């Protein structure tokens, strides 16, 4: 089994799927000879040609709108948004067409395509190369939202997304593109949409998180384990919508304490929904308040991003609150 990083894992997912099914095409800004600015599509144009690997003009609305039309006609496009922070021009296409095409045509048409792009902070990308904007998509009925945290999941989830029948917003934490490497199976496998992963078992408190924050959570769990002997369970959601509520409930049945950690701004970040869901349906499981450790409610800053994003200190503070309640 080869050791790969996330870029390579995504690239091999695309390549294998494109070999499997000629309807799968890739489009976006600079995805051709440039291979995408992070090289996720590297080498694809050489293998599949410019009809299936399409360098588009500079308009995200055009990319998503045109890809939606392609999917309605019968192709299976994987559209790249160069940085997910640039997706807003496409928001009308996403809300009006992509997410609603099945419903608004009475099921006659669907547009099961993938919109993927690098997200989240940690690379000193500043305000418009660092955003975690999953909430906008989770709040929009009709969309699946996915965010892998490791190469294995990246490949398996992208394949599952491509083979699914619904539109998927596929968010890739760019800081993990080359920093995490692991062995993954060479050939075909799938990580099912909607299933979380227990990163680490524990019995005192549950951290629900996703993306690069999985690693911050892990690091913090080691700190508090050594410092206080607290045993922390960590759940990597992987699919942000529909999220795997059962795994959270199961864990809470054990721990009774919940900390949700995400990079997105706190107010109406997905943490809000999870907390509300638990407070609505499983409040009796709780031994403590539900704590959210999240990006602050500000534009993403160029300077001090590691203080803006949840870090070991802030997650520690969150865990302390639920453990000391």
């Amino acid at each position: 089994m080869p050791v790969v990083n996330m870029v390579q894992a995504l690239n091999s997912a695309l390549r294998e799927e494109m070999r499997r099914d000629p309807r799968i095409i890739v489009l976006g800004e600079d995805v051709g000879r440039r291979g995408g600015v992070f090289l996720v599509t590297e080498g694809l144009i050489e293998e599949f040609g410019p009809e299936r690997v399409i360098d588009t003009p500079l308009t995200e609305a055009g990319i998503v709108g045109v890809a939606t039309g392609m999917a309605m006609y019968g192709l299976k496009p994987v559209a790249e948004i160069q940085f997910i922070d640039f997706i807003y021009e496409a928001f009308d296409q996403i809300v009006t067409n992509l997410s609603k095409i099945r419903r608004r045509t009475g099921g006659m048409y669907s547009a099961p395509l993938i919109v993927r792009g690098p997200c989240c902070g940690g690379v000193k990308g500043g305000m418009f190369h660092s955003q975690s904007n999953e909430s906008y998509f989770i709040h929009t009925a009709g969309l699946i939202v996915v965010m892998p945290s490791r190469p294995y999941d990246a490949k398996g989830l992208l394949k599952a997304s491509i083979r699914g029948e619904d539109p998927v917003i596929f968010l890739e934490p760019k800081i993990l593109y080359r920093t995490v490497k692991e062995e993954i199976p060479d050939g075909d496998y799938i990580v099912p949409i909607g299933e979380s992963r227990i990163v680490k078992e524990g019995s005192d408190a549950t951290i629900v998180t996703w993306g690069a924050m999985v690693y911050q959570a892990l690091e913090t769990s080691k700190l508090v384990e050594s410092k206080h002997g607290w045993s922390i369970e960590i759940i990597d959601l992987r699919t942000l919508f529909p999220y795997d509520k059962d795994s959270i409930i199961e864990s809470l049945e054990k721990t009774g304490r919940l900390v949700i950690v995400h990079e997105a701004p706190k107010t109406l970040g997905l943490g809000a929904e999870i907390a509300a869901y638990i407070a609505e349906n499983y409040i009796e499981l709780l031994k403590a308040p539900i704590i959210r450790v999240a990006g602050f409610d500000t534009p993403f800053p160029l300077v001090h991003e590691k203080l803006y994003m949840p870090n070991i200190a802030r997650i520690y503070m969150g865990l302390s609150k639920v453990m000391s309640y």
Partner: protein
Amino acid sequence: MGSIFKKYSLEDLGFNVEEALGLYRVIDEDGNVVGEEPKVSGEKLLEMYVFMVRARILDDWILKLQRIGKVAIHAPNKGQEAVAVGAASALDKGDWLFPSYRELGAYLVRGLSEEEILDRAIADADDPLKGAEFAIYGNREYNVVPAPVPVGSHIPLAVGAAMAAKIMGHKTVVMAIFGDGATSRGDFHSGLNFAGVFKAPAVFVIQNNQYAISLHVTRQTAAKTLALKGAAYGVPGVRVDGNDVLAVFSVASKAVEKARNGGGPTLIEALTYRVGPHTTADDPGRYRSQEEAKAFEKLDPIDRYRKYLINRGLLSDSEDKRIWGEWGLKIEDIVKKCYNKPPLPAEVIFYNVYSKPTWNLIEQMGELRESLKLLEELGLEVE
């Protein structure tokens, strides 16, 4: 010394500016031939007339149904039938149409029946779109894609479909119809630009009825003509008299043929006039004069085409009466039938959101059912 940068002149343009500024016509207001007639059978010519008549009658009925509250809202088609029928008649069966919301004639040409259009207008139990949205028509069986209400948002979809057809090696041509107002939206810009760059087999028809609700087209854009907008995308623009069904049909047919043969997209501006209100919720008296509307009402495309057909001996007065009478009765019967159909069940709310309902939707369906039971228990009605 010459520059490394190329200079161009009008000849290099690859774009006939005259066509974008001029006005293509086949018959004048009195039905006299003033341009080249399309080479099609008399049958086809008559068929287009009947479609225009059917569209007019149906439009009238939907208006009436709206007035009595049976239909939520309607965007009257009156006076614009030539654009819809002329353009759609240029397509083959396998071609795709992405219309807007004011093209009853085009839906009929493509094969949609009056009954399904009325089912849609009423959103009754047979509504093919399951009560998703009002005043929007389409059917996959006839490759007519229901429009999104946000004006112009379907343009990139049409371009994507056209590009897909090309990539998949199909000979399909895709036509999109939209209004003068839609040309201001970003979707027009991105759609036309993709079409130009990728030589998509697409035909764009601007139904320039001179108004976007209250805004006159001269305040919509400072461009001399809308066809000229094609120049921004390397897409040839052609300006045509939209009340002349033969002109629209001719220009559209050429564009469709060109697209089918790999010649790329065309932007057609069809000049017409919205004789009625924008929708049944509008009051044009607020923003335009009676006289203006009157002047254009005289240009009725059906009258004009009738004169031509009679001149050519393809139609007689009595035959004409028969057509109106027969279709009038037929459609009245259909209206009566649809009027009494039952409503859609409450569960349609949850239809087609995803390929399979997600867990939150299943929970919420439960909540809906419980609420229906409770309403019954309480003896309350909320609708």
